[in-house]
């Protein structure tokens, strides 16, 4: 893949051939890394050829690298208009005044097209367009930008290479038919196709200190420790677990980060326990965590909702139903529970609403009374049971009520 891309770009630079390609792969599979790597190689190579030809080029790069990243710049490049201005700015055309581009959208487009049309294969220097998060460009109106870029790459104008990066496998279906026809259908697929052994290797590589680390003896010690860790059973279990969940290398970094940050002067080496702790943190359930911090009354309400869910098979409920259920429990079963007033229960219910443990089906309107608003519970029964197990000082009758579901009636 690396070679393929390198060849492609090299041809554009050297022969002035126009091309277009897409790099497709899931998140964290190294699309941008691949591109950057290729560009780095390319720059080195260019210098070699330049030296051979003895054309002094310092100051002027033979091609301009456009980086347009709608993902990072948030909503800034959400339409063609902004993207176009950005291109003009990066190309440093002559209507740029101090990093700013003026003129209307139509003017800018005409200007840019005119500029690109003027060039021909042999004379003008090739341009590389990198469209990060390509799928967002697809949603622009009429796909004008893409059409024009691909059209240029298909006609005898300024040599242009368009590289799109995306994680969507169905990107080609999103292109309009005439845009699709102009795209050259070169797709480079990146997959995380490594197995667990390679994964361990990557893990080692990520943790080990480089050779140029100043304190050599410490580096030695650290690297040895990492080697030991990678052979440790518990560590392997943690890694295996993560590997099963996702092959994304970024999540590995996320796992290692808290573990490594636990390293201090007094605790100089990474231990298996650190990693285990990090793994546990990594895999905890966020909603269940919230449940731990609830009051007993709120827990009771959740249990009531759970029962309602069981009885009515996931149908939505409203506050009144929950309250009735709760009342039944208080009257018949509860010994340790205090019988709360309805407004108090209402308050607790609203707290749950705020925590987004329950969610209204439709938006609350002025007409509907709050008691009768239809709700859904956003927790699974297994989650509730797990949370109850670890809930501190839970009254036994509440636990029994939760477990027994209908049998207590």
């Amino acid at each position, binding site marked *: 893949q690396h070679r393929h891309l390198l060849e492609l770009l090299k041809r554009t630079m*050297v022969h002035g051939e126009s091309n277009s390609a897409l790099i497709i792969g*899931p998140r964290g599979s190294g699309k941008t890394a691949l591109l950057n790597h290729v560009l780095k190689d390319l720059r080195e190579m260019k210098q070699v050829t330049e030296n051979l030809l003895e054309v002094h080029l310092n100051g002027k790069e033979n091609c301009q690298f456009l980086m347009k990243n709608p993902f990072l710049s948030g909503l800034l490049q959400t339409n063609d208009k902004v993207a176009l201005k950005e291109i003009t700015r990066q190309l440093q*055309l002559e209507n740029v005044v101090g990093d700013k581009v003026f003129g209307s959208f139509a*003017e800018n487009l005409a200007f840019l097209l005119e500029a690109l049309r003027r060039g021909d294969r042999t004379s003008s220097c090739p341009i590389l367009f990198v469209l990060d998060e390509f799928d967002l460009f697809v949603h622009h109106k*009429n796909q004008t930008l893409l059409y024009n870029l691909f059209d240029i790459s298909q006609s005898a104008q300024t040599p242009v290479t368009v590289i799109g990066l995306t994680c*969507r*496998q169905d990107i080609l279906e999103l292109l309009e038919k*005439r845009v699709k026809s102009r795209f050259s259908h*070169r797709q480079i697929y990146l997959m995380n196709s490594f197995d667990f052994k390679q994964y361990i290797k990557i893990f080692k590589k990520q943790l080990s200190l480089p050779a140029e680390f100043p304190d050599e003896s410490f580096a030695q010690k650290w690297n040895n420790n990492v080697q030991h860790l990678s052979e440790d059973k518990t560590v392997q279990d943690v890694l295996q677990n993560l590997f099963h969940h996702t092959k994304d290398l970024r999540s590995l970094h996320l796992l290692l980060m808290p573990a490594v940050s636990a390293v201090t002067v007094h605790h100089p080496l990474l231990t298996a326990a650190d990693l285990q702790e990090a793994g546990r943190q990594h895999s905890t359930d966020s909603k269940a965590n919230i449940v731990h911090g609830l009051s007993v009354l709120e827990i009771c309400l959740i249990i009531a909702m759970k029962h309602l869910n069981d009885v009515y098979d996931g149908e939505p409920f409203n506050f009144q139903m929950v309250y009735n259920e709760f009342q039944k429990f208080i009257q018949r079963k509860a010994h340790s529970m205090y019988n709360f007033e309805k407004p108090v229960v209402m308050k607790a219910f609203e707290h749950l609403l705020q925590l987004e443990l329950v969610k209204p089906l439709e938006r609350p309107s002025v007409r509907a009374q709050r008691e009768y608003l239809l709700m859904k519970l956003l927790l*699974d029964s297994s989650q509730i049971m797990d949370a109850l197990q670890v809930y501190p000082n839970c009254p036994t009758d509440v636990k029994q009520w939760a477990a027994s579901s209908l049998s207590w009636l």
Partner: protein
Amino acid sequence: MNTRQQSKLIYSWCGKPMSSDRKLRTSQYKGILITSESSRTETCIQLGDFILVEGVNADQPYVAQLVDLYEDGAQHKRAVVQWFCRLEEIPQNKRKLLKREVPAQEVFFDQVLGYDTDIAAETIIKSIMVLPLHLAEELPIITLNKEQTFYVKQSWDGKCFKVLSPDIFSKLKEANRKRGVITNSSKAFIPSDILTPVKKEMESVVQSATKPKNVDMGIESKHSASKSSLAKERHSQRVADNDIKTPTAKKKLELNSPTRSKGRILGCEVLGLLDDDCGAIAPLQPSATKRKVKFSSEILGSPPKIPCSNDKSKSTSETAEHCQRLSDTVRLSPYTKVKDFSEKDKNLHGKDDNLSLVRYQKLRIQSPPLTPRSRRTCAQKTSALIAEQISLLKSHGKLAAEEGFLSGSDSSYSSSSEEEDDDVPCTPEKKTKSSRIFSTPKSSRKPAVHTPAKTPKKTPLPGTPRTPRNATPEIPRRIQAAQEPASVLEEARLRLHVSAIPESLPCREEEFQDIYNFVESKLIDGTGGCMYISGVPGTGKTATVHEVIRCLQQAAENDELPPFQFVEINGMKLTDPHQAYVQILEFLTGQKVTATHAAVLLAKLFSTPGPKRKTTVLIVDELDLLWTRKQNVMYNLFDWPTQKHSKLIILAIANTMDLPERIMMNRVASRLGLTRMSFQPYTYKQLQQIISSRLKGVKAFEEDAVQLVSRKVAALSGDARRCLDICRRATEICEFAQQKRTPEIVRMAHVTEAIDEMFSSPYVNAIRNASLHEQIFLKAILAEFRRAGVEEATVQQVYHHHVALCRVEGLQSPTVSEVMAICSRLGACRLLLVEASNKYLHVRVRLNLSQDDVMYALREE
């Protein structure tokens, strides 16, 4: 015109009819009376007067001379005029023939045959003055009524510019004199006794079809000039413009024109021009430096060819010799006089080399903005030459520049740069550059050193100001020349690129002929019409239409067809459908206005009978993009051709065959008419033919491989672009394979690999490379679908299955958060279609591919 807007004008005849033709029921008059209603003023315009006539562009009415006035049978007042044209009316690419800056007041005596000289008298606006001037004469300073005085120096016949022939000149002057306007600027310059014998010759030259370039006159005049020491003033004028009429020049022309005018092609002329420009400067060197200033400034505004010739002449006399040799070989008739002239020239050149060098450099810096397109052809022709001289240039350039710099006197430079600035008002950014460079001697060194490094190939492209601030749309030049293809495969790949336009379009001959006939017939009739062309992408619609236009333009140039204007708009390249008006207007008149105003102007343009308008051929690509809710853009576009005077031919291109029925309103569709043409997708045989025609002469593909590609693509879409892309990819694969083994041609295996790469479904591969839990999640989805019988499930339901599956597999069951993460990851890859995630567990999930595919992918494990 303002006057027209302000008040209504009444036109009435002045005096009695001079003569009347009973048969035609026309009567001729000698004057027309224009009465303005509001201001109560009367103007009488008589035959021979110069007038302004309403035109396309309200700010710039046409200039004409009244030749005849009559009233036709239907009581319409008509006028016969002799046109003058402004610079704006001359096509961009022809303007460079002029080789000088033209002030706004200058007009050209129009000898284009196509224009209608019979106009309605009501279109006359008012009378003006047109003063004939000799070429070299400066425009006299006009103090009063600047608006109403024009000057004419040259004539224009649609192909090239000529000096006014003496009789026209005198006629024009006569007309002015009649009005009592005698300008001292046009004082007697040509003695009448010399005029008379030459007149006939001159006429014949003007009317001869081959139109010999006046360059040759220039040569002769220079030659004779160098011999006979004429007045310095005249001398410089003549050389600068290459084509003044002196007795000697005309006599020479008499001798030479018959032979030369025949065996000459345009390229030679261009070359000839080049050489002359080189030569023209040289003999002048010894003349006083004062003269030089003016001279250089005159040239600066003019010749586009100079940059090339400069490079040559700079590299000292041997290159100059080279030029001359080239020109000699080009010229068919042996032409000894030029030779000895060049000999002389060479000597002079050598002497004044240092002096001239600096000037050349200046020229080079100045002229790029003016370089027109056809320079490229010239550059191609001379490219062989240039290539030889690049190395020479580099070594000599630096040295020569410095020498030249030292020897020149600084004061003259600064003064000359000032003059240059006056002469070149349209290129502001270049101007500032030059003035900075030359006014301070210090800084002039820098560009002088830099310029030789540029190779002649890379001289900047024409910079016509487009944006309000005159920015030049231009991509920076590449520093290294593009490599030429080295191997057979590279050559093949270059030819297979979609942009490589073949000389002829195979498999589209029929469509080509149909479109050609359609446009041609409309052109000949001078009427308007529409044609709708449809076809799926990549079937050569746009290419064919462009080919037709190219052929028509060629025919028009050979005078087989009336000339026409060609405008192209592309729906995809417009930001808004209404921008179409702006673009069309800009193409036609060069104005830049807002969309609504442009629509009004265009409507006026196409609905009123314009006397001098050519037929316009308008290509509308991607027509469906011009759809608006009220469809007024499309309505207008198709309404114009139906107007009587529009002379508009529209070729509309779109993908869908039934576009008129589907999205157009009835009134739009009916105006589009029934002239339709649809491009069928290519069959495999046609695709095969296309590939092989492109690969003609290059043995890079196996016969079977080509057939496989074309069959595969024909079965899918018939898209020629796709076909070419596959072939290109196949050459790359082959090239890679080649690195290991011996060189070979593209075989079946390579093609198959390329096809697989392009058509393979990514999903299966993606699923196989997904992590274990992701796969389990997919399995759980399948299980849930099977249970519920609906192809949609919430995450909660899937989660239960997931946990159960994990238990079966003996894995640790994931938490809800982790499952949500998996779900969103699969959603990002679009293996799943996922709702917005604020519903948490109740998010509905759906597969984006068939269940069978998922089963297949998962079972392989």
